[in-house]
């Protein structure tokens, strides 16, 4: 097992190094890589739940919670600091995740997904309709925050937020991997393979899933806060169901078998979007849809799975 994971870890290290260095050469990549890393953090949460065999089609609610935490702070309190935003975004979404989680972990599969979707749509309609507090569909602008009291010019700031995202992404990646390798993580996987046996072992499957769910909400919130800071705006669309679909899409694209799938998927997704949106303004969504179909039909284990399949074919050969 560990022998097979190692090459992926190597690729992960290379990926993180590239995202640290490449934007220094091309400055427009700074925002691109920051977005990739931030989205990757959210998708880590999706992958966590996929380990338990559960698909959340409403995870955008935590993404939006994180984003709006920063936005509300900027609107009602003023000022703000990246560290403060991220801490607050993580805490509020973890608390929100705990509340929603208490309800949803009682259900499995389609019912789990359905209830998540329902909760996220309630949040979305509140964000869209509570015009006086949320500015409705226009969203709330998130002013450029300082970092530990230092303020930056827009040019420097894109690098600041890139390295903050990178730091969090590396920590989250390492943390999730450690979690999945821990007894708690193995119990989470056991929910997918055989929940009945897990209960026979004297463990509460609901509690195991709840812990995973809260972590996943926490990651979603942090990713949301980062994206709100990077794009300097939070809109209700952050919590719409298509956003949730996008996160599940990225997870499957990258491969849900390993934590690095989150970043591999996010990199491919954002790159296709970045270049297709620039050159093929009218058809980028169509292209992404076709990519998704090809991946599902021909490489259901995602980009990570492709590498493993290639590796196995080589070993199996001679």
């Amino acid at each position, binding site marked *: 097992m560990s022998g097979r994971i190692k090459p992926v870890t190597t690729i992960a290290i290379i990926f993180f190094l590239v995202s640290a260095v490449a934007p220094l050469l091309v400055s427009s990549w700074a925002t691109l890589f920051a977005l990739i890393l931030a989205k990757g953090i959210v998708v880590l949460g999706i992958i966590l739940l996929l380990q338990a065999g559960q698909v959340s089609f409403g995870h955008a609610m935590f993404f939006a919670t994180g984003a709006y935490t920063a936005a509300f702070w900027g609107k009602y309190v003023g000022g703000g600091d990246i560290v403060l935003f991220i801490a607050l975004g993580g805490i509020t979404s973890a608390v929100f995740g705990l509340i929603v989680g208490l309800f949803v972990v009682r259900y499995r599969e389609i019912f789990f997904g359905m209830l998540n979707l329902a909760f996220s749509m309630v949040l979305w309609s509140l964000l869209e309709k509570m015009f006086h507090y949320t500015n409705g569909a226009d969203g709330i602008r998130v002013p450029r925050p300082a970092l530990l009291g230092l303020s930056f010019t827009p040019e420097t700031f894109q690098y600041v937020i890139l390295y903050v995202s990178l730091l969090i992404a590396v920590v989250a990646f390492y943390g999730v991997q450690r979690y999945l390798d821990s007894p708690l993580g193995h119990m989470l996987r056991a929910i997918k393979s055989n929940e009945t046996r897990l209960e026979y072992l004297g463990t509460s499957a609901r509690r195991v899933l709840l812990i995973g769910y809260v972590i996943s909400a926490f990651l979603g919130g942090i990713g949301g806060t980062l994206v709100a800071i990077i794009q300097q705006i939070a809109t209700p669309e952050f919590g719409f169901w298509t956003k949730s679909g996008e996160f599940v899409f990225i997870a*499957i694209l990258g491969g849900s078998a390993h934590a690095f799938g989150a970043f591999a998927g996010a990199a491919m997704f954002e790159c296709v979007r970045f270049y297709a949106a620039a050159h093929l303004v009218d058809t980028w969504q169509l292209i992404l*849809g076709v990519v998704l179909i090809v991946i*599902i039909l021909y490489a259901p284990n995602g980009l990570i799975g492709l590498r493993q399949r290639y590796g196995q074919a080589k070993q199996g050969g001679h």
Partner: protein
Amino acid sequence: MNSTLAILAILDGISYAALVFLVSVGLSLIFGVLRVVNVAHGSLYAFGAYLAATFSLAIAPISPWLTYPALLAASIVIGVACGGFIERFLLRPLSGQEDVLQLLITFAAFMIMDNLQRLIWGVQPIFAAEPLRLLPNVAVFGVSYTSYQVILLPGVALATLLGLRYFLRRTLSGAVILAVTEDREASTAIGIDAKRVYFVTFVIGASLAALGGALASPTTSLVPGMGADMIVLSFAVAATAGLGQIEGTALTALMIGLTRAFVIYLQPEFEVLVPYLLMVLVLLMRPFGLFGAVQVRKI
């Protein structure tokens, strides 16, 4: 709220419920038989609406009465062409695979159709109200309302409900569909072509979504994003009723339609919240829906 407004709200609710029912029952039928949540269902609704508008705008100069068959033709074309394609080339290769992949491939279909819709019909709102204007207004308890919305739409919905009931409970094809739903392997063993059943069911479900869109097209302006809104709404109705419940879907659509209509007149800003709040409340108490059969938890 006076009585005129109340009657207006009831009529609004009924006509809205009729449209929502058509779309939701298609979604519910597909889930009941194929066990797939068709995320592209809203896109089929939008395509049905746009194609119906195109057809009726084209045919209205010849004879405005021909717009009604045009609506029906548009929904069948979309149901067979798009629905058939999705089932045959996207879902069938995935049968037996993980649920998440089946769900996600319909999400891919949604993304593609959403984009195609903007490429084909543009982003400007389209109006095609000819079928609505042809039929006279009727007075219900002193309130004047278009007979298209208050008679034709509920009529079609009721006919669909009764037709589906009859088809599934009284005909051989219906019995075959139920058999495959109940036990795919056993029904295959006695010679039923399960693949064909899946295909036919999906096309019927897709046609119902397109029919909902086609019938909605004269009553509203067609804009991008209508599909994305409709899929969650119809999903909320189907899930609140209990996936696979046909009569339950009708009652739930009526309930949500009426509640929504009253909320529009009383507290308009909470209009979009209503169906999702109801869905959360119902699912928390009865995860299998209002009318779904309660299954015993495995552990």
